[in-house]
């Protein structure tokens, strides 16, 4: 199980590769400009749960209910770090 951290937006090809490489049991977290993926159809094809850091999401002008993505805080991110041995950054 791996935690996949997405920090760049959809204009960054490597992030798309990271998302598409996700497997069942992994989880992906959108941080910084990575939260822009929340507005992309590409997330519907993700094979793992995808979360977004709430602070970064709100800082970029989105509203909580605007997009269908689970927003988490840093405590929840630490829980995901605890649960996932692997990391893809």
């Amino acid at each position, binding site marked *: 199980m791996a935690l996949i951290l997405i920090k760049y937006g959809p204009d960054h090809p490597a992030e798309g590769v990271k998302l598409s490489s996700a497997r069942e049991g992994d989880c992906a977290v959108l941080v910084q400009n990575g939260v822009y993926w929340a507005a992309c159809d590409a997330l519907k094809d993700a094979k793992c749960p995808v979360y977004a850091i709430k602070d970064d999401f709100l800082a970029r002008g989105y509203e909580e209910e605007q997009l269908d993505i689970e927003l988490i805080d840093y405590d929840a991110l*630490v829980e995901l770090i605890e649960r996932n041995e692997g990391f893809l950054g």
Partner: protein
Amino acid sequence: MKIAIQVMTPPYSYQDMDSAIKIAEAALNKGHEVAIFLFADAVNAANSRVKPIRIDRNIPKKLEELIKEKGLRVDICGLCMEYRGLTEEAIIEGARPSGLPELAKLIAESDRFLSFPA
């Protein structure tokens, strides 16, 4: 649990250092051991002479607080410091010049390793 976080990008130009600090603080609050390894331009996050305007956050000061109050470990790539003219006298209290062998050891000894690539 031992958690190591590597940061490479310059503070204030990128958000990586802010993200690393928030993750580190949340993990420290949960009782984890946390080390941040500053590599390449991220070494400026440990420059005590950084003087942001008053309404902005002071990243080196925040790191120093986490070192003193919560036991954060901050290692700095020594070669990266030299490249940027950052002397030992100028780094924040509690941070320590380090190197890639130490980073390798840190990774090997950590339960979790996070990296914010450039």
